[in-house]
């Protein structure tokens, strides 16, 4: 009779309230927090890992995961950097080539999962090493620098002096992904497939095409993140952002995306990214050591997940949980 209560909407609202509360608290506690410069700086920091979190979202909704997103981003940025450095006659191809590469990396992930039926976590763990390894071999290790000035410029440029370009890219990507997930057959299918792959086969869902599409989207958004990183850092490094992978998965969990598939929204990702950025900046402002950041992130994640379980199941007791199942 009684199913799990669907708390997704309430949870998203709670997350939004939390973000606002942190924002308000920091504005009061740290006088320099609510300054133009600080807000703009925050707005140019989070888009890169925000984009990576968006890339993971569709794969998790479909019951999988993509661990290779950071490696794809780095490889895309290396390829773009090489083309940019090669001279004006190749530079135009940098952005399309990077995006195409992301797409191909994603399709390869999809093939391993759809055709060889590898578990997504293993398939993408493998390609994480593979794509990362290709990047290291191509660059020989050190970061690629010496990009034309015009490319690095946009990464630190703000529209009207207020809205950083990376933030605009993140917003557009979030909007596009949100539309795809909510208003296309593929988006609906990805969610239903994540909820019950067997039932999906019984309604003739195009399983392989769907998986290819999902991981291709993940690869494409990862490559976009790579381009943003390249512009912001002004160099391409094959092992940039080593701590991003776990952060990106944490963002998805914090965003209310089900680790078992079937649930997750772009809105949740945006709120989770903003919340973490606020906490991170806040810690700097309150003069905590940078080492305390992980401590805070970890605690927040555990508290949020525990609170969610408590609300959903209406208690922790094993037997009550049994009852809800029966």
């Amino acid at each position, binding site marked *: 009779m009684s*199913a*799990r209560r669907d708390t997704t909407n309430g949870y998203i609202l709670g997350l939004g309230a939390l973000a606002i509360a942190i924002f308000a608290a920091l504005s009061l506690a740290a006088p320099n927090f609510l300054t133009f410069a600080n807000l703009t700086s925050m707005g140019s920091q989070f888009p890169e890992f925000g984009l990576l979190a968006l890339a993971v979202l569709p794969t998790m909704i479909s019951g999988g995961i993509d661990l290779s997103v950071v490696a794809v981003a780095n490889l895309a940025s290396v390829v773009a950097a090489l083309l940019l450095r090669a001279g004006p006659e190749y530079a135009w191809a940098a952005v399309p080539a990077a995006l195409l590469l992301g797409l191909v990396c994603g399709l390869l992930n999809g093939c391993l999962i759809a055709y060889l039926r590898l578990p997504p976590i293993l398939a993408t763990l493998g390609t994480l090493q593979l794509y990362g390894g290709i990047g290291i071999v191509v660059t020989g290790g050190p970061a690629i620098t010496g990009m034309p000035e015009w490319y690095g410029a946009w990464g630190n440029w703000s529209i009207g002096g207020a809205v950083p370009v990376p933030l605009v890219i993140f917003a557009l990507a979030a909007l596009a992904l949100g539309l795809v997930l909510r208003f296309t057959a593929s988006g609906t299918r990805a969610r239903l497939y994540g*909820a019950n792959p067997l*039932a999906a086969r019984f309604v003739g*869902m195009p399983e392989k095409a769907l998986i290819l599409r999902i991981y291709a989207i993940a690869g494409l958004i990862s490559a976009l993140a790579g381009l943003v990183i390249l512009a912001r850092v002004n160099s391409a490094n094959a092992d940039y952002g080593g701590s991003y992978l776990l952060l990106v998965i944490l963002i998805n969990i914090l965003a209310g995306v089900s680790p078992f598939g079937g649930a997750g929204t772009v809105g949740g990702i945006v709120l989770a990214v903003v919340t973490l950025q606020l906490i991170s900046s806040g810690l700097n402002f309150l003069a905590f050591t940078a080492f305390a950041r992980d401590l805070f992130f970890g605690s927040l994640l555990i508290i949020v997940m525990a609170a969610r379980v408590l609300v959903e199941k209406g208690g922790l007791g094993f037997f009550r949980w049994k*009852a809800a199942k029966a």
Partner: protein
Amino acid sequence: MADPVLSMTGIRKAYGPVRVLEEVGLTLHPGEVRCLAGENGSGKSTLIKILSGVVPADAGSVTIAGQTIGADARQAIAAALSVIYQDFSLFPNLTVSENIAFLKTTAGGERWHRARADRRLARETLARMRVDLDLDMLVELLPVASKQLVAIARALANEARVIVMDEPTTALTRSEVARLAEIIAALKAEGVAFLFVSHKTEEVFAFCDTITVLRDGQVVAEGPTSAFDAARLGCEMTGRAIDTQRLARAAPVAAEPFLSVRDLARKGDYAGVDLDLRPGEVVSLVGLLGSGRTELSLSLFGMLHPDEGTITIEGRPVRFTDARDAMAAGIAYVPEDRLTEGLFLDQPIADNITVATLSSRGFLSRSALKKRARDAVQRLRIKTPGVEPTVATLSGGNQQRVVLARWMERSPRLMILNGPTVGVDIGSKREIHEILLALSRAGTAVMVVTDDIGEAMALSDRVLVMVKGRITGAFDADAVDEDRLYTEITGGGRG
């Protein structure tokens, strides 16, 4: 008569404004088998939860073996009551003996795991039941009927004096049901009392000494089984008279089959199958679990691939690689296991209804999808406040209607249903049958795969019997009776 081993008096329970149970009383004496009958939503599962201490009652008391039980399942287990749920709640990765001994030893507070003692307890308990099972077999490898026996043995090993069984025969074949009846008779003689929760009339009459009928949270009838017959029981459960007669049909059956199967074979599953399904006709394929009925029907839907033989649709040979091909040819399939194969449980009803008819081009209009779902909900009289709640919030009968609605959206030429009314209460069952007949009258070919002979008789024009992978008999439903079919599906007709 001896003192009752279980008595519940004046039980009341409400969830918010909804009153689920009102002044419900129930007693059970040692050696008694009582049936708690009621449709889905009658309150019987809530009553069981109160009985087992999982949910607290608002008022009333539960006494088991002289001990009053509060809201704690451990108290109930300690007071010698065991509930065997439909999924048996066994540990699939442990052996038979470990499962049997678990409640008594590990959960009973023993600190050390003693395999020898476990085995001895398991062996003695199975001997009490006169059952022979391999003690070292992993439970996940056992057939369903044996898992049930392990669950009963676990209850007995824990010195249960009252065993509550939820829908105990749902997954059993006729011979397995007979075996269960023998075991229960033996345990009755020892003074163990049983409470069967059921809405299947056959098993109620086969097993039970006494019946308590629950409807809308109240006890509406109670007495010895001899005071009831199928009609009265159905009437008390639903509150209206239900005739078990065959349903009116009178659909014109087309001469040319929509789908024909010739000499179809799949190694280990079925062989030499010939089959014709005509528009306007309802054909039942009856057979026991393992007869190949499910494999055959999955092959007609492209989910399995036959090794030999042909499938033709309107004269053209076809070869389905997956369900998509079969769907494109106008075939719909309602799977056997609604919960794992049919539904996306934690997803909205609207998505569950429209999933097979999503247009791949361009953007979807959520409001148009919801409107379509709402229309279907209305047409099939699915009881729900809206199409946004998850399908998990619906009762079994309404969930099945969601699956039906999904396929009716496609206006299929052939609808194959595997066990369409398993776990559905009598009232809903009848309505689902009406829906299928309406489909058939509108010119859809309908094939019902079932082991419920009554259902086959009520619905179909023709009944095909499947035994050990072969179709061994074909009958005009007007010219055969239930007893004959029972003999046929167990292979009794041909030794």
